[in-house]
């Protein structure tokens, strides 16, 4: 079963087309990793799939329903979005920010209950940032904000998780931990669509990898078939030798030999 389906999809802002004729699916229970250079339209694609940006043409279906057919509330109960971290304006506590992830589950006129607080606290605990709960979201570091936004997406308890560069500004330890969480979520049956700038992260967690070049998807499939040095070299505009020299032994070595 497909969780997300796109047919002949063009995305972009107004008259500016970023990518045309996209046709790919996200399968239930898989981790699909999106790789692509800066400005290739990964975030634009996510926003279109989430119904935050209208498609320029073509069709997006999420859980069998066209994207325009969803109410925001029903959609948020099923699909959670972890955007790239922003500094925020008002000094909400991290607890309050994570509780905002419960909004789709609480009544229109209600405030979060003890049950919601428990879920939020569990999510903070799972990410190892319980100590930040009472800190002001505007005063913590970029990496900590990112962890808070991951906690918020988890608190949403959705079956589909869309994550825009979840490992971007994290330290080495947190990168490893977050990849571990993604793996665990996959085993719980959560479908994950994420972007990353690090092919080795994609190789670590992805069931499939999609290569998004400016204008189109140039490859989608099993990691060993897609994240190959020649295709990555092509995607990022570097040489295979440069990739081999950069990646530590073992990174893409196995795949390199097969080509």
């Amino acid at each position: 079963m497909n969780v997300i389906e796109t047919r002949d999809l063009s995305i972009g802002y107004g008259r500016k087309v970023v990518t045309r004729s996209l046709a790919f699916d996200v399968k239930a229970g898989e981790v699909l990793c999106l790789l692509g250079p800066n400005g290739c339209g990964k975030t634009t694609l996510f926003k279109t799939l989430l119904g935050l940006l209208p498609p320029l043409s073509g069709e997006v279906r999420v859980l069998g329903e066209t994207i325009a057919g969803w109410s925001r509330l029903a959609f948020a109960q099923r699909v959670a979005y972890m955007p790239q971290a922003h500094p925020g304006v008002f000094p909400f506590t991290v607890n309050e920010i994570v509780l905002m992830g419960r909004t789709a589950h609480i009544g229109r006129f209600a405030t979060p209950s003890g049950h919601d607080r428990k879920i939020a606290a569990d999510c903070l605990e799972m990410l190892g940032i319980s100590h930040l709960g009472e800190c002001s979201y505007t005063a913590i570091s970029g990496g900590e904000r990112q962890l808070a936004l991951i906690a918020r997406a988890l608190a949403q308890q959705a079956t589909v998780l869309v994550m825009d560069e979840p490992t971007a500004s994290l330290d080495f330890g947190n990168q490893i931990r977050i990849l571990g969480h993604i793996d665990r979520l996959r085993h719980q049956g959560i479908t994950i669509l994420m972007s990353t700038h690090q092919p080795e992260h994609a190789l670590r967690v992805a069931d499939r990898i999609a290569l998004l070049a400016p204008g189109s998807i140039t490859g989608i499939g099993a990691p060993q078939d897609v994240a190959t040095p020649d295709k990555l070299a092509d995607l990022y505009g570097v040489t295979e030798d440069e990739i081999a020299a950069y990646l530590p032994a073992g990174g893409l070595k196995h795949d390199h030999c097969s080509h």
Partner: protein
Amino acid sequence: MPGKNSAPFPAFLTALSIVVAIFLIAFAVGKYPVSPADLLRSVFARLTGRDAGLPEAVEIVIWNIRLPRVTAGILVGAALAAAGAAYQNMFRNPLVSPDILGVSAGAGFGATLGIFFGFSLTAIQVIAFVCGLLAVGVVYAISGLVRRHDPVLVLVLAGIAVGTLLNAGVSLFKILSDPHSQQLSNIVFWLLGSLNGIDTRDLASAAPLVLIGLAPMILLRWRVNLLSLPDEEAAALGVEVARLRLVLIVAATLITAAVVSIAGIVGWVGLVVPHAARFLVGPNFSRLLPASLLLGAGFVVATDTLARTLVVIELPLGIVTAMIGAPFFLYLLARTGKTE
């Protein structure tokens, strides 16, 4: 700002006792001072239905002069502060005031027209109220026509443009007004705001409008928080952003127009008070709204008491709120800069 969000309740109680003290002082001082003992005796007598044994003049001052005035201060202050808190949240900016979408400029223009053409006080209030709503309606309609921009930015810019146009209109009618009559000074006095002359009938017409506007703010208090996130994030969390923002704009505009039409333009309340309230209880609207209502009521009753007792003549309220509000605002600004 550690400790502030974790312990809002004692801070709230402290603020509550200060505000109650302000109300009592406001009842006591003025051209005809009333001693606290007389005040208590009169209130007690009213509650128990017995005769207080006070001179009739004291009773009249307390119940017919001070009570409507303090009530007006509470209503105007609470309303402007609540509207300001809602606007600051939805515009993701702690420096906006309820005037941001042109409601005060519209009401000011309406009142100026009414005074210029010599309408009755009631007619002036009605025109001010309607023009305030119209101005915001025009701003909202313009923002709907401009697409592919941040909707919040377009609203603010349209508000500034429409407000400037209306203020130009106000200036025009000031120039055209008859210098030998009271017209010009009436216009100027109205534009600076005052609680002088607000009677029970005015309160009875404005209070229901304020309560109607407050209802959606109270009901949607949790979701209001999410409007301070970027639109796309709030939407991804399950909020129909455009609809919620429209509901709040209508509510905040109704509240502001209702009190501006009876009190004139009382500046700074809607900007400073939510700022101070946020400082006290944090940004969560479930706590920010009650704190803003309380501090707003206290602030306007206090400034109005100063306005009528500071010098021999009564000062326009807007001048006093600005004189106290602006330095206080700068102080808060300096402090938040340090702690964040």
